[in-house]
């Protein structure tokens, strides 16, 4: 069995030139942990997830630098966190797209997919090898669901 037989086709995506606000709304409304970011041709360029979103409500230096583990002196309140997020609202989400871990292809063997999922917290993207175009996503429920269905 291969990846193409269990993946969810036509997944929800966000275009790289869409604003951060739109991607944030997508995460919030669907309770997604992350959403794939694609370009105008549908090629996957990364993902925008909850970690990236949380990073936007802190000073950039604090996120980039391990030496700033203590941030108590910032004395922030909710309004400060909100201000930082609002400042980024209109930025293109592609700016904050993060690298995706393992990328699957339609012909990736199912055992290999499971092996990747055991090490990943997110759903995994399935892309066409030649074009890099996103064609589906695989979640752990895609696999567990199928196994349970077949066993009943």
């Amino acid at each position, binding site marked *: 069995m291969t990846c193409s037989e269990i993946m969810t086709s036509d997944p929800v995506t966000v275009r790289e030139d869409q604003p951060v606000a739109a991607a944030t709304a997508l995460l919030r409304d669907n309770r997604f942990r992350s959403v794939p970011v694609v370009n105008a041709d549908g090629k996957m360029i990364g993902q925008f997830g909850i970690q990236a979103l949380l990073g936007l409500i802190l*000073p950039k*230096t604090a996120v*980039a*630098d391990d*030496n700033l583990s*203590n941030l*108590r*002196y*910032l*004395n922030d309140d909710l309004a400060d966190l909100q201000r930082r997020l609002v400042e980024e609202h209109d930025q293109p989400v592609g700016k904050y797209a993060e690298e995706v871990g393992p990328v699957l292809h339609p012909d990736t063997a199912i055992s290999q997919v499971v092996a990747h999922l055991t090490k990943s917290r997110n759903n995994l993207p399935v892309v066409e090898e030649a074009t890099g175009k996103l064609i589906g996503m695989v979640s752990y429920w895609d696999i567990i669901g199928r196994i349970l269905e077949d066993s009943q």
Partner: protein
Amino acid sequence: MILSLATTLLGGGGEGHGVEPLFGWDPLWISGVIFVLTYGVIMTEKYNRAVVALLGAGAMILFGVYPNQSAAIHGIDWNTIGLLTGMMVIVAVTQRTGVFQFLAIWSAKKVNARPWGILVMLSIVTAVLSALLDNVTTVLLIAPVTLLITEELEIAPYPFLFAEILFSNIGGTATLIGDPPNILIGSQVETITFNSFLTEVAPIVPLIFIMTLLPIYVMWGRKLTASDEAMARVMNFKAKEAITNVPLLKKSLAVLTFVLLGFMVGHPLGFEPATVAMVGGALLLLLDNLSRTPEEKSENVHHTFGEVEWVTIFFFVGLFVIVHGLENAGALDILAEKVVGFTEGAANSAEVTTRLSIAVLWVSAVASAIVDNIPFVATMIPTLKTAFIQLSEQGSVLDLDQQHTIWWSLSLGACLGGNGSLIGASANLIVAGFAERAGSPIRFLTFLKHAFPLMLFSVAIATVYIYLRYLI
């Protein structure tokens, strides 16, 4: 031939097992080739400098430049190694208290978060900490907070980081422990002490500081502005919250005070800086672990030792063996002859001193902007010592004060020269790394364009100082 290499590899390392130079080659040539190759590879910055230096040191032994391993180890200046390691341990423990972040935030608030005021205050903090600790640690801890403050002020961080690079090297020039070239000079020239640096080099540093700050003001300072709202955000910072461990801070400050006093009063009592720094480091480790369980103690000490910059320490070890090999083979005699040749025709020892000190100051400055100043100074010290001996053999005996003038020139040239380019000193690269990660990269040529003229300006001030104080 091959026998000499085999002898060395198979146990010719101990004292008494003499090793002949490989293939009967002249040790002078072997050591020269190893030296040039090692320094050349270090300059490319393609390989870790400590690894290259250790390989070069190994080659000096394996190719028979040294008669045995003991002779090579004899070349390592353990005072420098002990001083560096001891101070690194003290800093590794102290930095966990958050005191450096506290100082940065406190100083920013002292000037009501006005951008130019913050730049001046952070420059002072950087210079003072660099004089008392080391430049790399100072910028490692101040640069991230600087980026945080400029981000909150919504202004470009470049002028601030530029100033911190310059003033870390300028501040480090003031003391024996402030910058590696000074540590080398202070450790290897027996008549120079911690206090000598305070009385002879430190007095010019405040003037260089001010004179360097003026062009920075003209270039950027007068145009630095931030909105009231942004300044209010920085004023909202709580500096005290930066301190994470008050008891440890008290212990660290007590030990630092003890160590600095030890540097000042230790020399007349016969205690070298390495002894003071290592005792201080061990004492702070003891105090830091008093209330921990044996397992926690072990883990904490292990963690602290892990923060020592072993790359720097092993780099020094390798360099010492290489330079001492060069010295043993007689190569530095030739280099010293060139130095002495430069004084030809000088009427007296005063004129020799004038020529040498000015030449050493400027050559060191330009060389240190292009290459790492540590290997440069490590080579210059034995070369100049040999030159002094050769000069005295020729009848131009330099007295101790005259020799010291040349050492101060070497210190000022090598330390200030580090400001000439982004690769001139380790601290420069550390700041550039932070800036890049924070999305405000410092370009090599941009920095060169701004920093090189300021470096020349500071060396010109140092030249006037050396001339007026020691040469007329």
